[in-house]
């Protein structure tokens, strides 16, 4: 049985069980283990050996997304003293890593990796997320309830939450500049701002080839792995590094299965419970109370 049919079975079961009208979901949302991403989807290859930690990408992101003023100027390198993560006020951050293997410190840019099969999307119970054919994982903040399950589900700790807002707190994360750039075929603001071209924008499929070519053409420069090529089902943003990835803050234990595949084991039982339980327990009831029933009948007759 294919995963797709299991999923549709689940949906049918759910619909029966809760009498919920099934809103049609865009095909894009039907993430399954066999989904390898849209063929034409775009991506970015981040080459850690090229990044110089100038934070131009952070500044560009801040301007493009109209984010609040930062605490420190974007040319202030004191921020590297601690490891930062994405927040409601910064959709991308660069961290510095001093590693034993490299002479120079390495810098790593963090942002949404725009998974092929996003965990945030599959965990969202209001269907706010969408994976666009261009490769971006975008979301509709007007339906966000603020349950923050996507933050729990994201293996990369990317989505942030507008905790500071009392009236309209929603999820905040990088959207690949979808609204202003990607949908028009343009690279995101961070890529355009990068002076070193540490960020290479292109079709994801081409970038994978390009990454492997770089590894092949520069013996000894890179670890022979593109982080994100296969991690959690593949991501649109991928990384090349000169040192083992776990030394520069990457989680190397994520595996290649998309996050949804871990949840499927439960999702599979849902239609079974919905369909088998009623008959089973009515049966138990009839068995358990058959003496009483017989007695009742006798009384009547």
């Amino acid at each position: 049985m294919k995963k797709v049919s299991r999923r549709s079975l689940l949906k049918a079961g759910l619909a029966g069980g809760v009498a919920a009208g099934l809103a049609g979901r865009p095909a894009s949302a039907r993430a399954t283990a066999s989904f390898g991403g849209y063929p034409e989807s775009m991506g970015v290859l981040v080459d850690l050996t090229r990044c110089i930690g100038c934070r131009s990408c952070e500044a560009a992101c801040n301007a493009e997304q109209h984010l609040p003023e930062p605490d420190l100027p974007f040319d202030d390198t004191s921020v590297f003293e601690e490891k930062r993560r994405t927040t409601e006020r910064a959709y991308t951050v660069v961290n510095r890593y001093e590693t034993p293997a490299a002479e120079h410190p390495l810098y790593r840019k963090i942002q949404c990796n725009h998974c092929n099969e996003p965990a945030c999307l599959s965990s969202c119970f209001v269907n706010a997320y969408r994976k666009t054919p261009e490769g971006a994982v975008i979301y509709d903040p007007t339906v966000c309830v603020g349950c923050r399950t996507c933050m729990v589900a994201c293996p990369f700790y990317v989505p942030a939450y507008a905790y500071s807002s009392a009236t309209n707190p929603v999820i905040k994360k990088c959207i690949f500049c979808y609204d202003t750039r990607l949908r028009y075929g343009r690279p995101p603001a961070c890529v355009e701002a990068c002076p070193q071209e540490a960020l290479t924008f292109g079709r994801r499929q081409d970038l994978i080839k390009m990454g492997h070519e770089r590894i092949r053409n520069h013996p000894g420069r890179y670890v022979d792995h593109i982080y994100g090529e296969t991690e959690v089902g593949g991501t649109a943003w991928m990384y090349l590094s000169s040192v083992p990835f776990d030394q520069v803050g990457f989680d190397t234990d994520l595996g290649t299965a998309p996050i949804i595949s871990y949840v499927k084991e439960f999702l599979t039982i849902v239609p079974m419970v919905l369909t088998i339980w009623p008959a089973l327990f009515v049966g138990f009831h009839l068995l358990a109370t058959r003496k009483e029933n017989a007695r009742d009948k006798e009384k009547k007759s």
Partner: protein
Amino acid sequence: MRAAVANGKLGPGEAVQAGEAARWTLREKLLLGLSGRQYLALVFRNPVNWVLACIFAVGVPVIVGRFVFGLGWATHGSYDYPWGLFLAWGLFTMVPLSASGFMLGTTVEVFGRTDFKPIERLALLNGLLGYFFAVVYLQVDLGQPWRLIYPMFVSLGPAAVLFLVAWHVATYLSVQIAEVSPAFFEWIGWQRGKQVVRSMILGLTIAGIILSTLHQGALGALFTYAPGKVHPLWYSAPFQWFHFFISSIFAGLSMLIVVSSLCKRFMTWRCDERFLGSLDRLTIGLAKGSSLALATYLVVKIIGVAHDGDWLYLATGWGQYFLFELFVGVIVPLALFTRAIRHDRAGLARVAAWIAVAGIALNRINTALVAFNWKLYQEVPHWREVVIVATIYALYFVVYRFILYRWPILYEWREGQEEPCMTLSRSSTGG
């Protein structure tokens, strides 16, 4: 407050004398037949109420603050720990502790074990209130609680586990309201409504089993979204839902033992002979159910470790903590329950039940907070978060007590006697 009644300072009999009116009155229904002044005197005499008042004095402003200033004010607003104590306690612990409703519903209505009838209503009420306050906790935790119905009607994400939780908790809450409503109808004196519900009870009960199986499991399955974040010992993709489901069985039953023993101890005046007389026997019955579930849970936990190949983790500090949780939360209550059953000692079963309830809380908080992000740092909840959790629990306690004092939960409504008779019967009415 009614402890005072139980202590004999102002007994039910006194209240009965005070309640002269033989009609459905506010006084009969709400003030337990006491005059306003007598009632207030009772309220002030009870030290528990002073504790509650202190909690509310601090907690209510904090809850107001949470909605005025946002979650970032009330919690640490952690991006790494999006779920804090509100959900770890309010949702993930309250819901299994409320599994009593469907357990006893099944026992009595489906399996025809009518001998559990005296405690069935308490089990159903415990379920209803637990779920209701789980939703209250959820509403405090949601960033936009006013959008709670979005997953139902506005924007549906049916492939998400939380979608299932939302729908099932909502439907099950309705089922439980229906199941508990006969007590309410008796109290307000509307026999017709009661009969309607009675006719649907088997359907409701089976719906309850289905919904409970799925959403108890689904709460566990929510964590399967975070394979890298929850420590492997507390994580098992194939077994997580089963762990949560099985543990909810003994959690619900143990909670019922705890609540019923509290009622027997502090609300004796409200309980009728049918309840008091059978409670020890029923407690042992519940203990049997609990111990079976505990044993199953223990085995499936071990299978989970074996299946995922997590043995090596047991040798680490996390492993010690895992074993501690399993020992205190499962093995100890299992041993005590077994002993209690063998020697027919309801008291021991009650001790075991308290431990099992604590064990469940420990497990859920461990899964949601302690073993979560085990590779990062440990989040310690903000004090305001703790205050809010305590305040809502105090509210839960107050509502619970309010209903137990009044509705025919711990006592049987005498059919044929119309509502006003309440004041005439010593045993079955709240003085």
